[in-house]
């Protein structure tokens, strides 16, 4: 009787023991603790981020790392954080630098994304790229067992995910970066994953369907949530300042392009003449011309 009682106490204590017994530093240089039970694997350089969120019902990942080596590093880290399985993996976007590592976690993870993510992944699938990845001396070993795994759940507009004590709100962001971008909001923890709608001191790649007005609307919506921590798809995590900076940049870009259009200048002339010295220290300068194109589209549409 007494043994049973003691065993019970022991088991309860085991259950109550903080699962996160490893600290963020122990996990490796790429790991940052955001809040209790919320860790970020910060991509090297400007590579994609991946977040590990512990819940009573298992782990929820946001994205799966830039490449399989990152996915494996994340898998090793989370095994030190908890013995629970990865139950859900939420994609902020379907591009390969966020989704190639799905196979490392699923099964058993259920993969969740905005509508269109699976189609986007299938269309982008490149057998040559996979072959190269498998043959790569650095990535190859981690990519062993690779197969393309598309999302199980595709939502439209908005959905909520509950896992243990935590709630995740997913918002579809239209025309901000890929065919299926999601912002992920943890209302209790006030942590926002802003996807690649915003960059940090870096010009975004604005594809022909990407719209600056839609991006500004997304920024406004995300800021209205009142986040304490903002984690972009790529780059250092921070505060709403990340949203503010991006908004200021796009507004200034729109204003300057609008002025030049009013002066009767062509897109080509604008691309040659427009300078934004305020952003001389931003990365991804090769993308500045497509930023001008996007601004030109927006100005012309009005």
């Amino acid at each position, binding site marked *: 009787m007494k043994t049973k009682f003691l065993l019970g106490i022991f088991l309860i204590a085991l259950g109550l023991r903080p699962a996160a017994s490893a600290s963020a530093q122990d996990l490796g240089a790429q790991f940052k603790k955001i809040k209790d039970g919320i860790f970020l694997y910060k991509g090297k350089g400007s590579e994609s981020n991946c977040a590990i969120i512990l819940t009573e*019902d298992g782990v929820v990942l946001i994205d799966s790392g830039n490449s399989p080596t990152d996915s494996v590093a994340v898998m090793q880290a989370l095994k030190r954080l908890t013995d629970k399985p990865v*139950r*859900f993996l939420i994609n902020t976007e379907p591009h390969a630098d966020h989704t190639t590592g799905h196979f490392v976690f699923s*099964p*058993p993870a*259920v993969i*969740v994304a905005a*509508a269109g993510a*699976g189609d986007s992944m299938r269309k982008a699938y490149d057998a040559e790229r996979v072959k190269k990845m498998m043959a790569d001396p650095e990535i190859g070993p981690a990519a062993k067992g690779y197969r393309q795994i*598309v*999302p*199980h*759940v*595709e*939502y*439209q*507009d*908005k*959905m*909520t*995910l*509950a*896992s243990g004590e935590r709630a995740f709100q997913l918002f579809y962001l239209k025309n901000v970066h890929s065919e299926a971008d999601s912002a992920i909001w943890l209302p209790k923890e006030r942590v926002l994953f802003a996807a690649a709608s915003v960059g940090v001191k870096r010009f975004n790649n604005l594809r022909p369907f990407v719209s600056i007005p839609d991006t500004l609307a997304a920024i406004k919506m995300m800021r209205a949530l009142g986040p304490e921590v903002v984690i972009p798809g790529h780059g250092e995590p921070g505060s709403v300042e990340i949203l503010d900076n991006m908004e200021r940049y796009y507004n200034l870009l729109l204003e300057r392009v609008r002025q030049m259009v009013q002066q009767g200048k062509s897109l080509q002339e604008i691309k040659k003449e427009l300078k934004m010295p305020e952003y001389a220290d931003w990365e991804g300068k090769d993308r500045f011309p497509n930023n001008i194109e996007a601004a030109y589209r927006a100005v012309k549409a009005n």
Partner: protein
Amino acid sequence: MKIKFSAALFAAVLWFIAAPLAAQDLGPQIKKIKDGIYVYVGKNLNSNCGIVLTQEGVVLIDSGHNPTDSRAIRDAVKKLTPMPVRFLIDTEPHPDHTTGHFIFSPPATIIAAAGAGESMKARDKADPDRNRKLAESSPEMRAAFEGYGMVLPHVEYRDKMTLHVGERTFELYYMKNVHSEADSAVWLPRERVLFSASAIVVEQFNIFRPNVNIPDILAAAKMMKALNPEFVIPGHGIPGTTKIFDDSERYYALLLERVGKMAREGKSLDQIQKELKMPEYDGWATKERFAGNVEAAYRAVQGK
């Protein structure tokens, strides 16, 4: 070594026997719809449960009327496949569809329309003794409730979502104001099988809560019929075809016509409820709900 070998052989034989089970071997409640798609048809208009096998595991549509049903469903699933139940889709949050969640989750991920979790919590709060009373109804029920805990949906979608599991695709459509706070139609486009939830019932009168209205039910029926299903599996009642929708549409059209006529004659709702007869539907069950049907029709003809 020899024992190990015999055990392996035994397991192999067991697997071989288990795989090609006919629906009859699964018990009288289980009806095969198509390859890999079965329905546990609830007794006496109790709720149905769909069992869909995929290469990546099992997907259930609802979890059975009571925990005794849920356990029978779980046993049938085990006979059909060694794979786990990966997903459970709720057609509605009411307890006769969701009490059995705990039998399947974990590991199943539960999916429902937005508002389902709130609805489940509110009902539980309003009637906290329901499950205790139900458990006391028989020793079998008491045993089936062992390990009970309320398990809420993990995923709540709005409007529309898609679920991909193995080789199968499931499209979920939120249906507004048809029965509960969060009704979903579940459509398998390749298989042409539709789970129509409790929007449409078979040979019985539907219950009309204040949020439910006839125009929205007719709109849902039209939407579902447009999917062009080969099989229609209602939330309650015998699985059939789109005839289920046709029957329901005919009933509501006739009801609206008669109530409309009486309202134009200046009759009050009270008078209509007293006088209106629909002898064509004498064979339908749950007649106590007819007065509510008349009220809903009265609301509709008044444009409310």
